[in-house]
């Protein structure tokens, strides 16, 4: 028995979401399989982008600006450990924010929990992430760098990166349906975020009195976590900042899901 009334959110929202898991898988699979169709080098595109960024950052921040690395870890490796979660975040955010508008024909013709669409695009970014892991392994072999036991905690930080991109992603997705202005805001946020987040440099380079405030950027905790896991003993986790980043992630997630759910039912009218 289903009751449709204005302004009433479903009591079984999460159960409903679970019921539609197959659609989630299918949509994610569609986005992945379509991604590199009719390209010549296909998957290699997923390798070229992070590699190019890596080279540029290593040269600019490491060789020209001569910023310190974490411990004795090679600078390129440190940059790449930060680039991994950043790429995941940036492509999730960009993908998710355009996903609803891009699937307008679905939204206006079929019912399903709308949350599926942006989350499915995040799954696509996840595939790119896995490909980038191959580069990481290559880099480690090149520098003959052996990670410690900490690398086993990587899935935990991966989850953190996922949640960190989901919160703002959902919020921007919902806003983008209503106000297309955000289509122009997001590339700017992504570009800007790359420099305010410790991707090209180590967050240890930030002066101590600012470090806690700096951690309000949820990406700081994520990147630090990745570096700690990948570089092992070479990187130290700044725990108060790490906790603050988690708090920021939780706040964004709560806000994102709340805003999304509130606007979800009117998507079909607005899109």
């Amino acid at each position, binding site marked *: *028995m*289903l*009751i*449709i*009334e*204005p*302004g009433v959110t479903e009591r079984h929202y999460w159960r409903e979401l679970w019921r539609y898991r*197959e*659609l989630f898988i*299918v*949509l994610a699979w*569609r986005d992945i*399989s*379509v991604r590199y*169709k*009719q390209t010549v080098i296909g998957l290699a595109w997923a390798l070229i982008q992070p590699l190019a960024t890596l080279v540029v950052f290593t040269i600019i921040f490491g060789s020209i600006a001569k910023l310190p690395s974490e411990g004795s870890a090679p600078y390129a490796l440190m940059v790449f450990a930060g680039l991994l979660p950043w790429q995941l975040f940036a492509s999730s955010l960009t993908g998710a924010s355009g996903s609803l508008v891009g*699937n307008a*024909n*679905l*939204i*206006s*013709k*079929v*019912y*399903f929990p709308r949350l599926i669409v942006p989350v499915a695009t995040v799954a696509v970014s996840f595939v790119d992430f896995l490909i980038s892991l191959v580069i990481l392994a290559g880099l480690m072999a090149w520098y003959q760098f052996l990670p410690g036991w900490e690398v086993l905690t990587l899935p935990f930080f991966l989850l953190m990166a996922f949640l960190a991109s989901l919160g703002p992603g959902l919020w921007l997705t919902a806003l983008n349906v*209503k*106000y297309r202005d955000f289509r122009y805001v997001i590339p700017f946020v992504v570009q800007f975020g790359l420099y305010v987040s410790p991707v090209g440099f180590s967050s240890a380079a930030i002066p101590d009195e600012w470090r806690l405030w700096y951690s309000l950027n949820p990406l700081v905790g994520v990147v630090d976590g990745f570096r700690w896991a990948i570089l092992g003993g070479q990187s130290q986790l700044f725990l108060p900042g790490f906790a603050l980043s988690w708090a920021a992630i939780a706040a964004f997630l709560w806000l994102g899901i709340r805003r999304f759910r509130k606007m979800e*039912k*009117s998507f*079909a*009218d*607005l899109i």
Partner: protein
Amino acid sequence: MSDIAITVENLGKSYVIGHNSKEAERYIALRDVVTRNARNLLRSTRSMVKGDPIVQGDETEEFWALKEIDFEIRHGDKVGIIGRNGAGKSTLLKILSRITEPTTGRVTINGRLASLLEVGTGFHPELTGRENIFLNGAILGMSRREIQHKFDGIVDFAEVEKFLDTPVKRYSSGMYVRLAFAIASFLEPEILVVDEVLAVGDAQFQKKCLGKMEEAGRDGRTVIFVSHSMAMISNLCKTGIVLNSGRIDCHGPVSQAVVRYYQTLNRTGRATERGFSSDVAELLGCELVGSSKFNEASIFDAITIRMHYRILRAIDAKCVPNLHFFSADGSCAFVSNADAIREIPPGHYVADCQIPGGLLNEGAYFVGAAITTYPPNGTYHVEFFDRNALTFNVIDPMDERSNRYNYVGPIPGLLRPKLNWSVRNYSP
């Protein structure tokens, strides 16, 4: 479980729409354009701060696409929803299928509902036919296992087995539609909501789809069906709901609803306004003599169709009124004209045509009225022909005269004449 599938109470849906004020269009001076744009910018910023959607235009207005809709649908009912463009049919379907939220009221749905507002929703041009079957199936709410189970059936129905591994962007439009519809037709919910989706594909395939839909109906499934084709509606549905400007105009047996729909169509222009006249003759209107509001008659009763017309000037020709009878699906049942009439002077005329009882089948009939003149030189000329001069509904009272015995279903045919039968024992 109760036998009510869908209850709709006081349902309403409003949209805010914007207009460009007439003034704004008249002045094109730069100053006016600047102030107008500045005002619009201010308004959209204000609505963004408040969290309201942005509406284009200088003035906004609330528009009710649906208002005060109440009805109940029982399990196993086949309901046709008819109405003109913009009457609110699609909005109603979108609310029932949970795509959009109502502004007022409540809908209670009992059972698994699937909606088909479009065939091939979500088809991706880059993916192959096989992949799209899984994609579209999942979008329509089928599970993976269900699709695998029905896969061969779908491919058979769509007749695309040769092109299963070709991207659908290479398909011909016919193949595309066939595949899309094949997937949809394998949907097996308890309640099926279908928008005008059968208006695609070639005639033969349409017939096949129609057959599939009827099959679905026989399984005791509840079907809500929107179409502009009265033929499909009267073939598939037992009950009809007529929507007019967002309100229910009529809810009853499908033939009554179809008649009502044609009446609402006619109301906008009376015969003369639509120009059913020539310099010789003018149609004033048609009526069913002595009938109720809904133009209803029993299959046993003789009916009289009265046609009013005016002869405007005397001509040297026979002036013959004739009536064309169409069934709900648009096919012509028969044509009848008046007995030879000589040249007649100008004036208001009434032509009565009596149809004997026990000739028409039950259902809606549409009467087209025409005047044809036959000058002595052997030619003829149609002065006017109003295709929709009158609609009426013939009902079967279902008593012993109906010769139905235990059968209560529809009896096919444009006519159902009462003929003389004699049955004898022929055994030696």
